């Protein structure tokens, strides 16, 4: 219901705004009206995204209301499908995405480096954290902490681990209870899970491998998505999930009393969904408009409040924002740097070596 009323309010606001004022912030350049006009002429925007349609819907509705005449075609797929489809279609010269919005940060940066993306200097850049964009081609859009998730029914408050070391200690202290009850990403199947673990090693050093080994000795259960892990934690089949996407846990916990989550105090990785504009976009102006919209205060506010993703703008307030997380965790927040550093493990030899090390650690 809340969503519906919000839509109504947003739509009314948008309509009244469009009658009297421009739909974009005042600090945009005066030439921006031309961009809007050009985008409206295109009339369409194709987005390939690895974000649930359900989560994206409030943003899409608001955008379409702000810029009437631009129809958004939103394609929800997983990160690998997204990448595969886009490069296949590009090679064939067929219609493909105008905007790519994916949580596979490494693949997005690879697209930039391989020359698949267009450069666009968004007027929102001054409002963004400096680590969150790369060469005016890839823009971070969210600030999503990587968390531990646990089953509230079956884990007492005293047991809940608050640091990576706590987690290892907990498992070691009661191996019987946690046998087959810890779950995390199968990093061979999930690129996102792979990125998280490599970042873990970067932030936590050698201690990370110790934690992985401890989890491995408990008979780790591996999944390829946060959603399937949440399901099994909720049912009690697993007790703790390691390296899960915080925004999904937050959204699930709102509906499901069994789900609890913690931001690890020693360090909390932060992932950001990256957005790029395709070089051969059929609707480049509409694509620019969308990028600006999603980075704007209005877009980010909606993203935090309605989509349950976390906003990376300092001027957005609320539970799911960078400001709130910073208040809570301060320096222990470790955002994954948007840049070529993400490409290291797309080198096949390095990747396979890392996978080998991981498999040895989890004893599989």
């Amino acid at each position, binding site marked *: 219901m809340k969503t519906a009323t919000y839509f109504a309010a947003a739509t009314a606001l948008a309509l009244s705004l469009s009658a009297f004022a421009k739909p974009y912030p005042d600090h945009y350049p005066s030439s921006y009206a031309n961009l809007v006009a050009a985008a409206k002429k295109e009339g369409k925007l194709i987005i390939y995204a*690895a974000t*649930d*349609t*359900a989560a994206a*819907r409030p943003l899409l509705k608001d955008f379409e209301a702000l810029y009437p005449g631009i129809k958004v*075609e*939103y*394609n*929800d*797929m*997983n990160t*690998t*499908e997204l*990448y*595969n*489809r886009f*490069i*296949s*279609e590009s*090679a*064939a010269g*067929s219609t493909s995405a105008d905007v790519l919005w994916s949580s596979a940060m*490494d*693949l997005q940066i*690879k697209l930039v480096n391989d020359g698949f993306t267009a450069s666009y200097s968004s007027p929102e850049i001054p409002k963004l954290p400096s680590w969150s964009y790369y060469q005016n081609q890839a823009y971070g859009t969210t600030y999503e902490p990587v968390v531990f998730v646990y089953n509230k*029914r*079956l884990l007492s408050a005293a047991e809940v681990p608050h640091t990576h070391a706590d987690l290892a200690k907990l498992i070691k202290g009661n191996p019987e209870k946690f046998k087959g009850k810890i*779950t995390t990403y*199968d990093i*061979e*199947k*999930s*690129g996102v899970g*792979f990125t998280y673990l490599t970042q873990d090693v970067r932030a936590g050093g050698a201690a990370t491998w110790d934690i992985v080994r401890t989890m491995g000795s408990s008979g780790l*259960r*591996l*999944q*390829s*998505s*946060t*959603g*399937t*892990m*949440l*399901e*099994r934690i*909720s*049912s*009690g*089949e697993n007790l703790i999930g390691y390296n899960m996407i915080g925004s*999904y846990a937050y959204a699930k916990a709102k*509906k*499901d*009393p*069994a789900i609890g989550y913690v931001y690890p105090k020693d360090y909390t990785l932060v992932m950001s969904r990256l957005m790029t504009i395709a070089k051969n976009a059929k609707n480049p102006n509409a694509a620019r408009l969308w990028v600006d919209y999603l980075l704007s205060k209005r877009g980010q506010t909606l993203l935090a409040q309605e989509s349950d993703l976390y906003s990376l703008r300092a001027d957005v307030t609320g539970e799911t924002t960078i400001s709130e997380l910073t208040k809570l965790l301060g320096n222990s927040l470790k955002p994954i740097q948007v840049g070529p550093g993400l490409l290291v*493990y*797309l080198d096949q030899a390095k*990747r*396979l070596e890392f*996978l080998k090390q991981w498999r040895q650690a989890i004893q599989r």
Partner: protein
Amino acid sequence: MTAVSSSAPPMAASSAPTRRRAASPDVLRWLVLGLTTLVVAVPLALIVYQSLLNAPFFMPNKALSLDAYRFVFADPDFWSALRNSVVIASGMLLISVPLGAVLAFLMTRTDLPGRRWLEPMLLTPVFISPMVLGFGYVVAAGPVGFYSAWWQQWFGSVPWNPYSMLGIAAIAGLTHVPHVYLYCSSALRNLGSDVEEAARVAGAGPLRVAYDVSLPMIMPSLLFAAVLVFFLGFEVFGLPLVLGDPEGHLVLTTYLYKLTNKLGIPSYHLMAVVAVLIILVTVPLVLLQRRLLRNTKRFVAVKGKASRQQTLPLGHWRWLPFGLVMLWLLVTVFVPLSGITLRAFVNQWGEGVSLWQALTIENFTTLFEQDNLVRAMVNSFGVGLLGGAAAVFCYTAIGLAGHRRNDWGVKLADYLVLVPRAVPGLLAGLAFLWVFLFMPGLKEFKNSMICIWLAYTVVWLAYGMRLIQGALLQVGPELEEAARSVGASRAQTSRHVTLPLIRHGLLASWLLVFMIFEREYSTGVYLLSPGTEVIGSLLVSLWAAGAVEQVAALSVVNVLMVGAGLALALRFGVKLHD
């Protein structure tokens, strides 16, 4: 076409090649055979070609290389997947063949109670997506599944584990019982029961009759079914994906799926290698099957016309087999379906959850709020109903092109038809995406249902052809010969004699193809785009994305659709097998 009025009767033509040459070529027929060859061979060739490259075939930096084969053969995961596939296929063989044969005997030859309503129930596993079954087992019989919880409450510990290799093989075996049942029961129906009666008159009990008389008589069909099941064992994808993945039990198809991501960027060449290897394992089985099929037909032909069938009274023992059948139904159909249904109506479940408090219909309301999911329902229905009809049309055309003929074209088509079954659906779908992307003139259809329909039609070619050929075989040749002897051309004979005679068979095929299309799930995964979503493939995508509630609710919708198809089929008196 009109010139084909040579007076040679078709049966004679097949045995007299010199006279057949006199007939002028039948353009339409060769067109059909040519098109069939094209739609089967092009994607297949693409897969083989891709397996011999070191990068996606559309990349400028690709080169011919055997590296992909080397990589796969050096990967221990491949060998363990292969081993697991063999284990699953063997498990399926051991479970489904004896069970299927016994079921067939009970249903066709004995006075088992409730046979009339049991038959459609027996076949349901064929028409339910394995993804649905797999997830149903997690909720119902997983470590904290609700049946497991009840069992634990009453008996202390749970003796089953659906996630183990044994569990997966057992579930796969139980769900493939209907495949064996179909072949054995139709073989039994084609045989008169006089021999069995003779044995009974001589004083043999039902068990003795089944073992010493019925079994040897249907041996060829049984062997055929055994090869089929073993072959299908290499193709199982949904069950190991849902049940085996978390504990690391790979099979060839899930190994292939895993390769999508292992190197971080698409490894089409590696996937293609696995597909080629699966084809290499299964093609010999297909050939073996064809040999056996030939023998089956000969065997049946020797027996000639079936006499009136007599049922074997089971006496007061009859409740025992009935109980066994019910137990099988309980484990194979009821448990997973009740699991998935329950999951669709709660927002949480598991250890210590009161299901009453968790009840909700929210999963369904959110389903209908999302236009892509609603489109998926409409599309699935459409591709089953209209696409199914179009597919039956194509199958019939191919069937007629080979009807009562026996030249090299027919033999080629016979083999071609079986090959797509050997390609894992996932990769077949990917190959079709490539075909539509890179074949000139097809690009416009890439984001249309035509793409999905064609992939489905080709992947299920073998199944569809069997249905059509079954119907065609039932037309007495003398009727067609009569038409030909009064001067009708082959085309006219087909149009005015053969087709009207098999119209009921066609209707039945349509309904069966409808259900198969509703259930299909792996082929469409790479073909999904806005506007062309189908339920089965969305289930795989949503599962991968972790939208479990939607998977459950959508599964229920899917099962309802298949159920409606089945009910309709029975209402129209469709026989579920030939």
